[in-house]
């Protein structure tokens, strides 16, 4: 059950938020924005600004460092021609946990493509954990998903993205899945996967319907703790610039050994010291 949003959080995202990736004229009405900002005064909770697009953002909880926000579908989606745009901004030293309240189905667009673009900006030492729920590409859907993340120094990111080709009994439609993660030093992970349920390609996904990925970037060089390993059929790839990509390909989501990603929530004491 989703808690009711608290009154105090209904600070709508102004169109002129500094550093916001979208120009004001694009900000309404279909852009979902979540911004976590440092508290107005020491000891106060982080400020959370949200605006609703095709997805609505609902605050679940917050403290002096961390906020949890749930993303809820505002209606039937995704239909052909739909463009979901999600902008996430977490200021320096703050942390955000995003949860999806339901999975998403991209329906047969009858020739019209649909888009889901996510833009993530993390300040220095900021953290974002996003436990995404399955994104199902129904037969006939032509979907483009792009996740772009720009990380400040020491920022940490943990994302789970589960894509399913086809509802049950379907082979599924077409998807282009792009991930672009970079920090000030350059690209960390750039990947564009193209798959179509009707045309399985050995070496890309093969016959697998599910591609389940947890990407973790923790703002530092690769360390011995990133065990490159294979467990339960999932493979962990250690990225050159640090962080890991853990991936499982399989027939059904419930068989996946992957779980929601996790980052340690920063200690609230840290922020007090800085403030």
């Amino acid at each position, binding site marked *: 059950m989703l808690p009711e949003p608290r009154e105090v959080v209904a600070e709508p995202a102004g169109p002129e938020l500094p550093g916001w990736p979208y120009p004001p004229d694009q900000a309404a009405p279909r852009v979902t924005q979540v911004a976590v900002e440092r508290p107005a005064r020491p000891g106060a909770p982080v400020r959370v600004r949200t605006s609703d697009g095709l997805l609505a953002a609902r605050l679940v909880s917050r403290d002096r460092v961390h906020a949890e926000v749930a993303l809820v579908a505002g209606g039937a989606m995704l239909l052909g021609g739909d463009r979901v745009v999600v902008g996430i901004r977490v200021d320096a030293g703050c942390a955000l946990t995003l949860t999806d309240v339901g999975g998403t189905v991209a329906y047969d667009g009858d020739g019209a493509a649909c888009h889901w673009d996510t833009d993530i900006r993390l300040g220095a030492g900021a953290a974002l954990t996003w436990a995404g729920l399955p994104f199902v590409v129904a037969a006939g859907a032509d979907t483009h998903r792009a996740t772009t993340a720009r990380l400040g120094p020491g920022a940490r990111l943990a994302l789970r993205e589960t894509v399913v080709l086809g509802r049950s009994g379907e082979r599924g439609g077409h998807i282009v899945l792009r991930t672009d993660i970079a920090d000030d030093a350059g690209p960390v992970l750039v990947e*564009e996967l193209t798959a179509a349920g009707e045309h399985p390609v050995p070496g*890309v996904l093969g016959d697998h319907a599910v591609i389940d990925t947890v990407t973790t970037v923790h703002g530092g060089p690769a360390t011995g703790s990133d065990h490159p390993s*294979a467990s339960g059929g999932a493979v962990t790839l250690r990225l050159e610039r640090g962080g890991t990509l853990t991936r499982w390909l399989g027939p059904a989501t419930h068989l996946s050994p992957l779980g929601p990603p996790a980052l340690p929530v920063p200690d609230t004491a840290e922020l007090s010291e800085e403030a």
Partner: protein
Amino acid sequence: MTSAHVLSVAMLLADARLPSGGHAHSASLEPALLGGMPVAAVPAWLVGRATTASLVEAGTAVVTARVLAMADDSGLAGVVGAWAARTPAPALRDAARLLGRGYLRLARALWPEMPAVRAVVAHAAAHGPLPRAVVLGAVAAATGLPPADTVRLTVYDDAQTAAAALLKLEPLDPVAPARWVLDACAAAEPHVPRVAACITPEEIPASGSPQTEGWAQAHALLSQRLFRA
């Protein structure tokens, strides 16, 4: 002395007899077969490769050649970074750097005075082994190999390396894989202009192949294998 024609250079680079260490690699084929891919899937796998992993390599070579042609040695680090971000599997990065070492040895012996080759030699000495695609890009810059042909060379070499490895791993009529190689090259052809037009590291294709990446990691841990990768 007249220089060899650029077509002769391309043929030399695509020749399996080239002493660059390519014979120890299967272009991800052995990992795929050990990972459970049936031999019957090899033609489709080759086509998939020619339109995914090979294009990342090809774009890397093309951009390297452009960066070096502008005498921008500092741009090399950006190309290597873009390639590494597009190559998430450590086993594949390691294999590409091993091949790069062999290519570099060859390039240094054949075109020692060319600025592009000197630039990669200096970069490798300072920062460690460069991936094959970057060294190939330096050779392209040094010899005037056009970008579109650099793409075709990369795709062909990758497919032919796998095809040659297949004949060592599976008994079959050697004529069959020759057809598959040309089919893979044909599948890549519509992508050639786009990849050949890449100028900046950001433009390098990022087409991933997760199943191949997973197989590569599993293969790297095996002790009984014929090929390195």
